[in-house]
């Protein structure tokens, strides 16, 4: 009688421990996923800011550098593509293209001294640069968060809770680096 009570108590404790462990693992995965979502929202805010600045920039360049219609059109197209993109991978790729187009625009703007002297242009260039800085730091935090989340999904024991938590790996925010190296003229601002 005493023996069976003891066995029952041991089993009960083990079951309770297993349940508690599972709940902790489950909650950890949910927390990591929330962090990934918050980190992406942070990038999104900066990207929106970038999209808002570009039309003004294009307008201010138009008045000075009418010959650069192709470069301006490339920026406008790249912006439209980035605004229309959905999904982390597509948004990242579209923004890589946009970064290249902007880089070319700033490169050709070097040839127009009056444009370089324009207060409005300089202000926009400064703000865009600061925004791109913020994007890259937000991207870094997002990628860190994704790595931690994806590692938790794939490693034991947190992988046990991945199924019940409907946790699937997230995508890194990666810029097409090779493209940049090939296309952008090596200009130091």
């Amino acid at each position, binding site marked *: 009688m005493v023996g069976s009570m003891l066995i029952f108590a041991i089993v009960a404790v083990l079951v309770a421990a297993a349940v508690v462990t599972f709940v902790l693992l489950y909650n950890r995965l949910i927390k990591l996923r929330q962090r990934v979502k918050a980190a992406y929202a942070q990038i999104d805010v900066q990207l929106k800011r970038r999209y808002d600045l570009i039309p003004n920039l294009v307008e201010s360049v138009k008045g000075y550098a009418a010959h650069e219609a192709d470069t301006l059109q490339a920026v406008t197209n790249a912006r439209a593509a980035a605004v229309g993109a959905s999904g982390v991978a597509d948004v990242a790729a579209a923004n890589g293209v946009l970064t290249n187009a902007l880089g070319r625009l700033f490169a050709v703007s070097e040839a127009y001294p009056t444009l370089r002297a324009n207060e409005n242009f300089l202000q926009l260039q*400064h703000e865009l640069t600061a925004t791109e800085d913020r994007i890259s730091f937000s991207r870094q935090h997002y990628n860190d968060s994704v790595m931690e989340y994806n590692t938790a999904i794939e490693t034991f024991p947190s992988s046990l809770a991945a199924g019940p938590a409907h946790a699937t790996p997230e995508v890194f925010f990666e810029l097409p680096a090779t493209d940049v190296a090939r296309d*952008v003229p090596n200009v*130091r601002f």
Partner: protein
Amino acid sequence: MYAAIAANRRRSIGLILAGFVLLAVVMAAVGLVLGVNMSLVALVAVPVELGGTWAAWYHSDRLALMATGATQITASQAPQLYNLVENMALSSGLPMPKIAIVHDEAPNAFATGRDPQHATIAVTTGLLAIMQRDELQGVIAHEMAHIVNQDTRTMALVVTICGSVALVCDLASRMLFWGGSRRSSDNNPVVLVVGIVAIVLAPLAALLIQAATSRSREALADSTAVKLTRNPTGLRKALEKLDANSSVVRQTSRATAHLWIESPLDRRDATNRMFDTHPPLSQRIASLRRMEGAPVEAPPAAIPAAAPAPVPAPTGAPAPLGSPGTVPIPGLPFPVPIPGLPFPVPIPPPAPATADAASHGWTQVPAQSGSVARDVLPR
């Protein structure tokens, strides 16, 4: 690098546990010597301490800012500084901390606040005057790292434990002095002597633990700072500049020493490094150099210039724009002038490590003034 952070965290936990053990030993020793029931003393002391700690922790930011004479600033007052702090807030995923400036010639910085939601980063005007953008970014990242790692909380805990040890010992020695030990006169004399020795030495041990914890948090903050910026070079160059600069923050005391990025106390009396709140700068610079040898990831560059090939920078000379490991900021003057503050003043470059030494993974680092040169070897 993640391993380094984990190891450092374990060491901090170990040190806090050592503090608790020390407190228990002291309590037992006092009990033995005086023959007093220590639970009675603890009953009074513990609530008082807890109350005091809570108040210190809750108002830590305001206390630290008042003690150092820092004034809070807004984004429009120092846009470049704000921008650097904002970048670090983004890369750590934490809310934007408040920014404060200490009007002091000595270059230094500190972080305070009970949690990331109530954090403040303070820098001196001297720091803003001599640091270039990437160096200032490194310093800000170090301070942000203290907020990320919640070092203010850890240090509050450690300071309290060590404070209680000192308090109990003080109480006990007073009771001994005034003849409170008469009740235990029939005790074993060996126990009595051991107990008295423990009471005398314990406050020293407490100080050691406090200093060691602070040192390990500093080393951890350096690692975390590199994780935030992906750029060990900026912080390394900043520390080298601090090493070369001998001025000392005026508006400070031992009470706030553990807050600063560089020990604010006069370094000429550094007779015993065990009581220092900071690891020697040379050691921190050396470990950052090791990180430069094996960077974790390409530095974040908004518009990547030439592919950065991370190699250890040969000297402490100002790096050109787009140099290895730095973030090229197109369209910004470099170094960035902070409005209302003096322009960067030239700083004699710190003694360079020879290229040969760097390639062997060790660096001869000039020691601080007054002591002998040491070789800093990788562990």
